[in-house]
């Protein structure tokens, strides 16, 4: 009989992230599929009651919590101690957790501590003849596998954006407090802050409807034999402000900015999508001035509707991968798009 533990942490503002509700959905899917299994919830944070109450209508039979100042910060040593203690108290055999940066840092280590196994970037869970199975991608989203495991506890880290969030309602949850006394050697690290770009320079927006992908073409010589980098910068910045899209970039373009050439000032490696970048999830994607073959276009593997603008009608980024390819000058088209969007405001 499996004991399925949904393991979540509170956010900096004390709330529960959408990704945790998505993981809860995956945990419930397994709970429904696996006869005789039970669902329990484990929470870590400075204060966990409000978060437990916010999902109290879910069919979990028990709530476990590790709370206190020591557990407010996203830190390996304290998070590992908390997660380990909850897993033991709950006697969890399957641990479903959102693949947030906080859990991704620590839960594979906790699996090691408990003699279990961990799978990350999980995009689906299912019943495989009475046994739990998961789907995840290999070789940087280039092939998808379905697998099962014999070892327990099995940590399943669900990729944010891959499930619909569980909308179970609020109530009053009775939390079993799990005491964790943190030794001094777990406090050698302290989180001292968050560095983020200024509001107008914040170009990564995970919740945006649209991913706007920029390629190296923006910095290449154009029909007049000149580069137009300042103009490219203005057009892209203008579009991001008007559309509230999230900005992704090809490797070529971010590499240029890293090597001190005159390129787009607001781009960093954090914007890079693809094999050695991220694979964000957005309902729509618009790529501009990109060229790439299959291995490198994995950056928009999880974008549902895709359109591309390129001068190259055989553009490897778009052919067979986008729904629409506009063979056109991105400078001209984006200029017009910005005018239209500005007029709508």
């Amino acid at each position, binding site marked *: 009989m499996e004991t399925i533990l949904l393991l979540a942490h509170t956010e900096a503002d004390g709330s529960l992230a959408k990704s945790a509700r998505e993981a809860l959905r995956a945990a419930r899917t397994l709970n429904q599929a696996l006869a005789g299994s039970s669902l329990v919830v484990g929470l870590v944070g400075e204060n966990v009651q409000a978060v437990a109450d916010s999902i109290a209508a879910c069919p979990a039979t028990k709530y476990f919590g590790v709370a206190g100042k020591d557990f407010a910060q996203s830190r*390996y*040593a304290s998070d590992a101690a908390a997660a380990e203690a909850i897993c033991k108290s709950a006697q969890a055999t399957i641990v479903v957790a959102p693949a947030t*940066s906080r859990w*991704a*840092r*620590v*839960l*594979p*280590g906790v699996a*090691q501590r408990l003699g279990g*196994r*961990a*799978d*990350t*970037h999980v995009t689906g869970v299912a019943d*495989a003849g009475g046994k739990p*199975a998961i789907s995840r991608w*290999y*070789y*940087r*989203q*280039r092939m*998808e*596998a*379905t*697998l*099962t*495991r*014999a*070892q327990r506890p099995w940590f399943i880290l669900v990729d944010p954006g891959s499930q619909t969030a569980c909308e179970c309602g609020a109530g009053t949850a009775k939390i079993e407090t799990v005491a964790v006394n943190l030794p001094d*050697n777990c406090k*050698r*690290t302290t989180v*001292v*802050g*968050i*560095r*983020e770009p200024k509001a107008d320079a914040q170009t*990564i927006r*995970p919740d945006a409807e*649209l991913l706007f992908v920029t390629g190296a073409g923006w910095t290449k010589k154009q029909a007049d034999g000149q580069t137009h980098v300042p103009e490219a910068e203005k057009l892209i910045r203008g579009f991001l402000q008007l559309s509230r899209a999230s900005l992704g970039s090809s490797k070529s373009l971010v590499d240029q900015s890293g090597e001190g050439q005159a390129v787009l000032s607001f781009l960093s490696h*954090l914007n890079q999508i693809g*094999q*050695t970048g991220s694979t964000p999830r957005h309902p*729509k994607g*618009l790529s501009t001035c990109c060229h790439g073959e299959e*291995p490198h276009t994995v950056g928009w593997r999880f974008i549902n509707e*895709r*359109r591309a603008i390129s001068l190259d*009608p055989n553009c490897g980024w778009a052919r067979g*991968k986008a729904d*629409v*390819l*506009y063979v056109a000058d991105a400078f*001209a*088209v984006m*200029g*017009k798009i910005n*005018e*239209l969007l500005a007029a709508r405001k």
Partner: protein
Amino acid sequence: MSIAYQIVVCGSVVPDPLQTLEPVTGPGGPALKNEMMLPAILDPWASHALYEAANLAKNSPGSKVWLVSLGPKAKHQQVMMTVAQKVPFELVALDGPASGFTEAMEVAAALAEAIQAIPGLDKSKLLVFGGWESASRGAGATMQMVGERLGITDQFQGVDELKIAADGSLEILERIEGGKHQISKCAGAPALLGWATGNLPEPKNNPQVGMVNMRTVMPALQKAKPVKLAGEGLSFASVSLPKQLRETKIVKDKSADDIAKEIVEWIKK
């Protein structure tokens, strides 16, 4: 106060990202078609870790860098021809599969054992580096398990920057959600860092560095310990390529105005 660090970088080999990959079922489970024929590179994020390690070692006199790598001997040989020319390190090679389908826990056990066997290892000076995810398994799980086995609980993932303060404490920038970085301070070594891209460009090949490295690379490859990865308890039901082809509508000969209108309507839909 400058500390002489022992920096151990864990990094394996992966197929060159330019290659087309196709899954096949081998005798031991899933594998890549013509896996042994595919040209390999050092795992990209582990490469960044190696460059950061070399840079730190250069700025902390007396420090030394090891590269601990589990992969097929032949692939190591090929990859070392270029990697060994980049920065100074000593190779600790383990001979075994580098497939993405191998089990992270088993790989971690082999890596941790190899690290523990490094002569003169001093945990108070130890920094374990690696990539925050491989380009093969892409899990971001192995390094944490290595850290646990070594008893290191100051661990960081998605690291883009490490600064050492005068008192030996570490300031670390880790990638978190929404294009932000978390800043942490750690009292000092031992610590484990899974690197993202960091800040350093790929070093140019330096034949002199290559000559020095090769003195240890060749013997390391010769004495590479064989490692068996059983994938115990792990069963793959299927591995498949995604349905790749979309019917791409190609729009030519439309004015910028018309395209813009069409795109704005689509965005706003």
